[in-house]
């Protein structure tokens, strides 16, 4: 995606939150080198985000500091094995990097061939969940979709902020990407897709929960808005269920009638 310079300014927030893809991050960093306003804003945002991190930090368990200090006092230092590697730094050019979730880790997640998975860093997610609950992330329901019921909004919020939430991303065979956020404890997931191949009026996408020996009715996905389909909530999931996507007649089918475009084991 190419951005005009004026649009690049707006990426400062997403950049600091490490929410940009590799290409846009590179574009923004290139822009940053020539834009004083952006550098200033990025520095301030960085400091702001650091405060967010501090707010989510949990106090260490009772006695931990004493234990660590006591252990350190009786543990001898290891000799250096080899000279420390030089840190690569490009002189004369400031490359600002957020000091939290390592952007490289985002790119280096394991990938399968046909279905591509992304497991976001969930380290500390459980501790953070408490902080998020305190923050009251979804305390106020946004009116971001006039036709979505408050109940669905609440369900989506519950899954996205669940302490055990797992995110999977799978490439859709005919084009597009699907994102699944699942909470095994709640037995539900949120499914959303972007840039799915457009369908004629006579067809629709349906999402299926497949369980050997059981026919579970599928759900028709609403037509895309701004290239995005969903989000929809799928409930009643259990271990070893599969989540699948297929193209069906517009009035829906009682079981899949075409090839699966994704087939994800939950």
């Amino acid at each position, binding site marked *: 995606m190419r951005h005009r310079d004026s649009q690049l300014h*707006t*990426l*400062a*927030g*997403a950049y*600091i*939150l*490490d*929410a*940009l*893809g590799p290409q846009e991050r590179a574009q923004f960093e290139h822009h940053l080198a020539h834009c004083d306003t952006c550098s*200033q804003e990025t*520095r*301030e*945002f*960085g*400091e*702001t*985000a650091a*405060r*967010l991190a*501090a*707010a*989510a930090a949990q*106090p260490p368990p009772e006695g931990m500091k004493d234990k660590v200090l006591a252990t350190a006092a009786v543990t001898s230092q290891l000799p250096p094995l080899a000279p420390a590697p030089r840190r690569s730094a490009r002189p004369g050019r400031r490359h600002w990097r957020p000091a939290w*979730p390592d952007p490289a880790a*985002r790119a280096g997640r394991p990938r399968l061939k046909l279905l591509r998975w992304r497991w*976001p*860093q*969930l380290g500390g*997610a459980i501790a*953070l969940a408490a*902080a*998020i609950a*305190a*923050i*009251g*992330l*979804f*305390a*106020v*329901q*946004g009116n*971001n*979709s006039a036709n*979505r019921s408050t109940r669905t909004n609440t369900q*989506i919020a519950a899954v*996205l902020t669940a302490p055990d*939430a797992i*995110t999977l991303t799978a490439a859709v065979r005919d084009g597009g990407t699907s*994102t699944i956020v699942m909470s095994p404890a709640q037995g539900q997931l*949120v499914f*959303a*897709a*972007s840039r799915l191949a457009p369908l004629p009026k006579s067809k629709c996408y349906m999402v299926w929960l497949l369980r050997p020996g059981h026919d579970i009715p599928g759900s028709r996905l609403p037509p895309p*808005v*701004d290239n*995005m389909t*969903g*989000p929809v909530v799928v409930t009643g999931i259990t271990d070893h269920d599969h989540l699948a996507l297929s193209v069906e007649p517009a009035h829906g089918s009682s079981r899949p009638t075409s090839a699966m475009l994704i087939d994800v084991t939950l």
Partner: protein
Amino acid sequence: VRANQRSADRERHSVPPAAVHANPVAEAVEVDLDHQRVRRCLATLSALQRQAIVLAYYRGYSYSEVAALLGVPSGTIKTRMRDGLIRLRDCLGIDA
């Protein structure tokens, strides 16, 4: 005023370790006050700004994932992330 506040913050944070160690209760209270302040500031954001920032920052979603999961155009999410950080920055009195 912010500059004064910040230099005051720095002075507070640059107490010798022994002094901090000597008064763990005061330290804990100060940390707690800072957390409360961040939470208060988060509460001043619009729901969409807060959702976008929290999902990206605390849960590691990319902005396009946040957009898809909340059913909002991705351009809107980018803008909300920046607007939200501007509001947080001002609320926290940060100027770099």
